[in-house]
């Protein structure tokens, strides 16, 4: 097919999913996949029941439990004492059974944070539209999918119609060119972007991340970036699929061409490939051919553009109570004069107080009480490898409690195969079961009032990890270093033991 107007990646995916554009009403957009978890789904199912409506496409829905699942021990997951969590998880089981939705339950090999398992299972694919009642659905955009979070009534809408009425968002390309300096990661790129454009900087837009520094990232790194698009206010984030994307997807359980999938190979490969002889190459190649068209045409235009030189970036740490309050490890807590507006000055003042920090304090001088390694932002195998490399041969500072919560069963299994769990445990980290855990301060994974946490998650709002808790966002390697020294530490000068 030839088309005269050059189109962006977003426009291609959007147009392929337009069911109809009724005059004077929003576009009706087809949704390829809805991911379901225990917290935002119960009332959507109930709404279906109430209206006596069928769920249109059970095979386009996949569910797991993540937000409320205890991560302390297998036993605690099987006998959940928190009554609200227990009720929500039981409701999800019943709803999935009633409506014929595949559920990956607490102890299934495929269980994990909803945004981890979509890619791991190969459910997430280039060019798809994906929704979930969770704002970090933007993660799946790393594969060139259009993926965004929705509210409970919209969840019900998708269950009933497999569509959503949507107004077309604007487009915003962020091009990151050049080579990342050692010690600088995908997390630092996205924190830097949020710091530049602000937490509402991309409101109403879908961001496309482009440029050589993005192309050079692994799928894990790309997911970290797309995940936090929402922290920049964006509706979604996308990265065009390429050889890295295809290599990641090939042979995954639900990828095109995969046949006779054995669960044992899922566990073995950290959720990845089935043996090569069980892939129908012709089918796979056809899919790759289709996906390869999903790139922004030369001369396509965006509503906004921003260019960043990767070689100028440094490891980032947030100092305040919004992801936009971020600086680099070698800097100091900004002063009021650094605030961009009067409103920002007010929130700076409030943040100094809440975070108990004074402007001018060197970031490296800030001590931490807790370290959390995990979440859908940085709970992947590559993140755990990077952190383990830092930790190896050291011990957690006596003043720090540190935990690793793998994002999924597959990641946990893979890490254990590689011996990462032993490195963490002998360094004094807790090694947990998979789930959201301290990302959202789920009991008992919670900060005490006044406690300061170095966290690889995505939100540092007041009280996010527990009432009065103080959260600093950073990369996995930086979090690991802080756990060892007891204060923020520049990973670029770290002495690795191995």
């Amino acid at each position: 097919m030839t088309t005269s107007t050059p189109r962006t990646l977003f426009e291609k995916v959007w147009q392929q999913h337009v069911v109809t554009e009724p005059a004077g009403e929003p576009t009706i957009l087809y949704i390829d996949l809805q991911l379901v978890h225990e917290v935002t789904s119960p009332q959507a199912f109930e709404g279906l029941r109430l209206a006596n409506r069928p769920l249109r496409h059970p095979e386009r829905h996949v569910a797991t439990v993540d937000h409320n699942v205890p991560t302390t021990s297998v036993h605690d997951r099987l006998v959940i004492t928190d009554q609200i969590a227990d009720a929500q998880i039981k409701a999800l089981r019943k709803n999935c059974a009633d409506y014929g939705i595949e559920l990956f339950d607490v102890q299934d090999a495929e269980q994990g944070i909803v945004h981890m398992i979509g890619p791991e299972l190969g459910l997430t694919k280039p060019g798809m539209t994906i929704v979930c009642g969770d704002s970090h659905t933007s993660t799946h955009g790393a594969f060139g999918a259009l993926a965004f979070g929705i509210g409970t009534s919209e969840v019900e809408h998708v269950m009933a119609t497999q569509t959503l009425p949507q107004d077309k968002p604007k487009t915003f390309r962020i091009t990151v060119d050049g080579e990342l300096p050692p010690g600088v990661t995908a997390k630092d790129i996205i924190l830097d972007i949020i710091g530049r454009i602000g937490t509402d900087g991309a409101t109403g837009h879908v961001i496309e991340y482009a440029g050589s520094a993005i192309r050079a990232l692994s799928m894990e790194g790309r997911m970290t970036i797309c995940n936090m698009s929402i922290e920049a206010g964006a509706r979604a984030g996308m990265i065009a699929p390429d050889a890295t994307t295809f290599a990641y997807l090939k042979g995954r359980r639900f990828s095109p061409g995969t046949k006779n999938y054995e669960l044992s190979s899922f566990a073995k490969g950290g959720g990845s490939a089935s043996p090569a002889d069980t892939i129908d190459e012709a089918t796979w190649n056809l899919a790759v051919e289709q996906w390869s068209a999903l790139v922004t045409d030369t001369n396509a235009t965006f509503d906004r553009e921003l260019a960043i030189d990767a070689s100028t970036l440094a490891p980032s740490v947030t100092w305040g109570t919004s992801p936009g309050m971020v600086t680099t490890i070698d800097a100091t807590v900004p002063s009021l004069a650094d605030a961009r507006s009067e409103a920002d000055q007010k929130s700076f003042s409030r943040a100094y107080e809440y975070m108990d920090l004074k402007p001018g304090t060197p970031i490296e001088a800030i001590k931490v009480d807790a370290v959390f390694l995990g979440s859908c932002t940085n709970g992947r195998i590559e993140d755990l490898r990077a952190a383990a490399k830092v930790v190896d041969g050291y011990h957690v500072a006596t003043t720090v409690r540190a935990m690793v919560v793998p994002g999924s069963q597959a990641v946990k299994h893979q890490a254990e195969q590689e011996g990462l769990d032993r490195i963490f445990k002998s360094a004094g980290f807790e090694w947990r079961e998979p789930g959201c855990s301290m990302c959202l301060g789920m009991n008992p994974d919670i900060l005490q009032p006044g406690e300061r946490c170095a966290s690889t998650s995505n939100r540092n709002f007041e009280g996010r990890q527990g009432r009065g808790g103080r959260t600093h966002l950073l990369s996995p390697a930086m979090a690991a270093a802080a756990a060892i020294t007891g204060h923020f530490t520049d990973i670029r000068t770290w002495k690795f033991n191995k």
Partner: protein
Amino acid sequence: MRPINTLTSTAAPLPLPNIDTDQIIPKQFLKRIERTGYENFLFYDWRRLQEGPDAGQPNPTFVLNKPEYKGAEILLAERNFGCGSSREHAAWAINQYGFRAVIAPSFADIFFSNAGKNGIILVRLTNAEVETLIQRSTANPQHKLTISLEDQTVTDAEGFHATFDIDPFRKHCLLNGLDDIGLTLLHEDKLNAYESNHQKEFWLSPKANIA
């Protein structure tokens, strides 16, 4: 949603302005996982005695506890009904209790939209008209009102006749029992056509493996 055209029913008078959603449904019921079963929580605190030796027991003077108002499908209230928090639970509770319409001089915005999503008819009449209806239903609990959505009128057997305004799109939705989902399903032929083609695009299916 059930389509609705005319509704003839007795009415329960609640002669207060600014009835907020916290009163309609208190916050402790927001933790539930269900969308149904809110009928017993409607006006939870008002339905119970708040003090004295019988605290917690039904308050016999509250209109919904009076047997003569059982089965009323119309609620009468004063201005700014449904103000406060955005909780859709308020509309669920009103609907599930059995009210199909609320008549008041004005409604809060978010409640207005939530009620629409749940198929509740909201009728705006003048202060004087609402006053008259409240008096008649208070004096005679068996007093019946008829709301005609098609004609946009409220009438009774004693010669009361009032007209009300309603957005044509919302009227269309109520008459045809369409909620947002229903509206989308109006395009079902287009959806079916889209799907029959789209299902072939296996590279965009969640489960594209060879089972």
